[in-house]
């Protein structure tokens, strides 16, 4: 029986080549898309899986509040916590701090700048368990000047020699002994270190005291528990500890609290300040999953509509079979076999599509796909169950329509004009499909516009043609080591002087952090010299007098810093937000006022306009600019002339190598760097666009098939009308009327839903576009135009026939 069913199904496919091709084609594209999306989603959810006992590892978020007002909440916290927590809380086994610094690393043969060096405690390797491949986890990080490096860095620095026991020099020449090698952190971890070294080294050099304190925010903190505990239990234990060590009454009313994050939650579910890398967003993943489901729906609706319509064409067969004794049950089985065969045969081209396109897709959208779930039997079990349920569900309705035909009418060969309920369902499904297409089109358009808007927004500074040079790391100095800082500054002045000899180079500046980068210095309060503390998030940026001209930032009142060694120490320039925060009514009022920020007293020298130093998803903070040369790291900025860029860059390079022979020449352009902040959104937009185009394509495949079927059904009606005098326009109207109506209904349903969701999505951005009705109308018009083009094609085909012959044929 089954063999028979299969054979018959294949013959039906052969007879209905066009529709089978459309059906399988649509299903294949849909399945391929879903498999690719599954790979993407699986990757995004597979973060940190390389760590053993990953469920017992947490990151600690530090939250400080005063009078119930949160003044700091971020991934960085105090250094005392990790030192005591494993002794004080019984179920916490290990804790480590991690301090990040991009460093210069020098081996015997090689020199690498801007390396990801993390300064950690000795238990790090027990928390990030299973990563060490050479060395002793007990001792590898237990003292000063010890270093563990990743396998690929070991190869880069020492080639095939055994790295253990070798010495590398860091920054100004600290000698580190390699005591271990760890696996390279995979792409799916938030914490991509290249070198691990010890915070004991800081103590050894006397840069920090051995015993940490509770009031700084410089370290990432990770803990590992002895078993899985609820988040609440751990937080309670940590907060009790904090309360016992830092009493708000003794600490100026400031309350210290902790939030723990399971390490697996970090990638998709964390957006505190000072994240190690730009994290993914669970919302975006959900949106993408939603689009995937929508595509699957569109594909299946195609399938249902096509099969239902085709099954009516098979009504005669069904009638005959029934008179020869087939029961509805047997006919349904035949139908399900056909449906399964069709869906399964779509899987093969889908798999081929995935196989051929996955690397292209990874590159184009800059995403990683992970198909390792294919190795798990449980995945297959689920896949088979879900696939079968889907196929069963989508073939249920056509099977029902097919088998419910009335025998006597069917064998009389009358085409059954679907019963009214039948057409309602078909129309409903089409409306659903149009809804999805319209919704996605609106969404794609808005996402694109928002990204475009952010990239082209007037930041208030001009990022173009600003070349950024990584400062000389070999000259790093502690902030209070005045002689060393002075030496660095003088060298910089010489460098600047040499550069400006080239007439094409207009401005040169130095700063600690560049636009688009996380700023290093932050405060929670400021006050006028004779005033109360004002609580707010505040940024302090170290720049010099060249900074504002390089970026063409407007100074509203007062003036720029002056190049005078004596005056610079206590002058400060503020932005307009800071002016407002301090309570000055006009920019002029602020000039000359004295303020207390941190431990210092400052005199306001100028007020700048509010300009963006971070992405538009964040609002501008009250910012204070101090005239300081960066004591460590830092960046030097050069404004280039748009003409002859390569010549200028070559000149800068040779000048750099002359003055800083010890330091590598590392540059990038400010605008490219700044726009990297939008990569995440651009990537999202690109995926969204691609999926939308696919969805429209698949929906259209179905539409073409539907129109083709209705055309055949209506061929006689149209011919009769034409013989009776209907012109071409009337034929077009006759054929497109019902589809236009459906699209307009779909537009009315999809638009408000799209409006609601997009409004929500736009709330992620501090600066965003407005939603206009035009975008919605354009989307509906687009879908309508595409549908009408399809209809037009078939109308022309119909018009080519001579109506007389069609009528005679009947």
């Amino acid at each position, binding site marked *: *029986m089954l063999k028979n069913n299969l054979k018959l199904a294949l013959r039906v496919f052969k007879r209905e080549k066009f529709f089978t091709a459309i059906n399988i084609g649509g299903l294949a594209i849909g399945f391929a898309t879903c498999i690719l999306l599954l790979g993407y989603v699986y990757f995004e959810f597979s973060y940190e899986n390389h760590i053993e006992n990953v469920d017992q590892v947490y990151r600690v978020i530090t939250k400080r509040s005063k009078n119930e007002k949160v003044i700091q909440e971020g991934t960085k916290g105090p250094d005392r916590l990790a030192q005591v927590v494993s002794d004080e809380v019984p179920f916490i086994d290990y804790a480590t701090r991690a301090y990040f610094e991009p460093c210069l690393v020098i081996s015997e043969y090689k020199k690498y700048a801007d390396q990801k060096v993390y300064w950690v405690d000795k238990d790090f390797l027990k928390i990030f368990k299973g990563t060490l491949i050479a060395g002793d986890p007990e001792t590898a990080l237990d003292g000063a000047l010890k270093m563990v490096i990743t396998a690929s860095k070991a190869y880069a620095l020492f080639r095939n020699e055994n790295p253990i026991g070798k010495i590398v020099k860091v920054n100004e020449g600290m000698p580190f002994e390699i005591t271990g090698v760890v696996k390279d952190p995979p792409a799916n971890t938030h914490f991509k270190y290249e070198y691990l070294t010890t915070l004991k080294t800081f103590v050894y050099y006397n840069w920090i005291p051995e015993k940490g304190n509770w009031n700084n925010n410089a370290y990432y903190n990770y803990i590992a528990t002895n078993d899985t505990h609820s988040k609440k239990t751990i937080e309670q234990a940590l907060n009790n500890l904090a309360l016992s060590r830092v009493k708000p009454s003794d600490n100026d009313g400031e309350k210290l609290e902790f939030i723990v994050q399971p390490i697996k939650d970090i990638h998709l579910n964390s957006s505190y300040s000072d994240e190690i890398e730009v994290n993914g967003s669970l919302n975006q993943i959900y949106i993408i999953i939603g689009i995937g489901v929508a595509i699957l729906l569109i594909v299946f609706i195609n399938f249902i509509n096509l099969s239902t319509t085709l099954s009516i064409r098979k009504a005669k067969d069904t009638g005959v079979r029934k*008179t*020869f*004794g087939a029961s509805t049950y047997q006919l349904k089985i035949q139908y399900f076999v056909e449906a399964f065969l069709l869906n399964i045969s779509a899987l093969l081209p889908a798999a081929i599509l995935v196989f051929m396109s996955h690397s292209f897709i990874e590159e184009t959208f800059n995403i990683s796909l992970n198909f390792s779930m294919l190795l798990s039997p449980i995945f297959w079990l689920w896949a088979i169950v879900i696939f079968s349920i889907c196929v069963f569900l989508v073939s249920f309705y056509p099977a029902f329509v097919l088998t419910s035909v009335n*025998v006597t009418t069917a064998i009389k060969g009358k085409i059954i004009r679907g019963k009214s309920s039948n057409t309602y369902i078909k129309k409903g499904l089409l409306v659903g499909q149009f809804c999805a297409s319209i919704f996605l089109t609106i969404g794609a358009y808005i996402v694109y516009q928002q990204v475009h808007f952010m990239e082209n927004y007037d930041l208030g500074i001009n990022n173009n043609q600003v070349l950024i040079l990584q400062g000389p790391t070999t000259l790093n100095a502690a902030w209070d080591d005045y002689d060393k800082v002075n030496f660095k500054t003088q060298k910089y002045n010489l460098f600047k002087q040499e550069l400006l000899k080239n007439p094409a180079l207009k401005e040169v500046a130095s700063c600690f952090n560049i636009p688009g980068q996380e700023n290093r210095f932050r405060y929670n309060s400021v006050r006028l010299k004779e005033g109360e503390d004002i609580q707010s998030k505040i940024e302090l940026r170290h720049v010099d007098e060249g900074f504002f001209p390089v970026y063409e930032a407007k100074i509203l009142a007062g003036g720029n810093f002056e190049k005078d060694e004596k005056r610079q120490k206590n002058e400060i320039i503020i932005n307009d937000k800071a002016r407002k925060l301090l309570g000055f009514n006009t920019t002029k009022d602020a000039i000359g006022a004295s303020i207390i920020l941190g431990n210092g007293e400052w005199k306001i020298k100028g007020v700048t306009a509010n300009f963006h130093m971070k992405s538009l998803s964040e609002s501008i903070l009250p910012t204070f600019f101090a005239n300081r040369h960066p004591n460590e790291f830092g960046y030097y900025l050069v404004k280039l002339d748009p003409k002859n860029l390569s010549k200028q860059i070559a000149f800068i390079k040779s000048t750099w190598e002359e003055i800083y022979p010890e330091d590598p020449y590392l540059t990038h352009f400010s605008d490219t760097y700044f726009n990297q902040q939008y990569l995440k959104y651009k990537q999202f937009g690109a995926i969204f666009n691609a999926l939308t185009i696919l969805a429209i394509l698949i929906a259209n495949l179905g539409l073409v098939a539907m129109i083709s079927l209705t055309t055949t059904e209506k061929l006689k009606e149209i011919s009769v009308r034409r013989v009776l005098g209907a012109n071409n326009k009337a034929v077009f109207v006759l054929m497109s009327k019902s589809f236009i109506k459906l699209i307009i209904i779909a537009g009315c349903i999809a638009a408000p839903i799209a409006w609601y969701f997009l409004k929500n999505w736009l709330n992620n951005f501090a600066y965003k576009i407005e939603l206009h009705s035009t975008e919605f109308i354009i989307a509906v018009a687009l879908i309508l135009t595409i549908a009408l083009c399809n209809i037009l094609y078939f109308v022309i085909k119909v018009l080519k026939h001579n109506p007389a012959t069609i009528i005679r044929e009947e």
Partner: protein
Amino acid sequence: MLLQLNNIFKWVNSGGQRIFLLKDINLSVQEGEFISIMGPSGSGKSTLLNVIGMLDNFDEGEYHFLNESVHTLKEKHRANLYKEYIGFVFQSYHLLDELTVKENLEMPLLYKKYKSSERKAMVADMLDRFNIVGKKDLFPAQLSGGQQQLVGVARALIAIPKLILADEPTGNLNSKQSEEIMELFKKLNKEGVTIIQVTHSEKNAAYGSRIINLLDGRKTS
């Protein structure tokens, strides 16, 4: 007695009026009879045939088929009854386009509980009997009308029915082909198969042992 119809009425309601398709039909058929139903278009010939074949319901009256009271049976039992005892032959053959001759013949058997080997034997037997062994792998579209109807009759016979119902079996055929089919029916009838056919042609009707004339749903003779 194979079947008996007592006072069968069938009607449709149209615009508040009752239009009778069959009106007070009484008919009894003995095994081995060859009956021709005649009458002008719309006189209810096909309706009567469908009622006898249990494909159509009637509104009033009694129908006994082999001691079963069809009018009291449920849909499912009725279907079992006609599946077992009745074979159909259609004017436009109604062979399944995507099945070969052999498979068309096998189709009715698939819906009954025959083993694969039994089915093969029965099909082979039937092909032999109708002299169409050479055509067993052809599709209906590759056959002439007469050959198609030959297959149609073979298909009706394959499950060994007691009764064959033929609705204008030669309506689409030329006179030579018609004659062949009617001769076939005659031969089958002699072998003991009961046949009821609907026909327009006096000549074809003459093959039968009895003629029933219908006019406006009423039996006139």
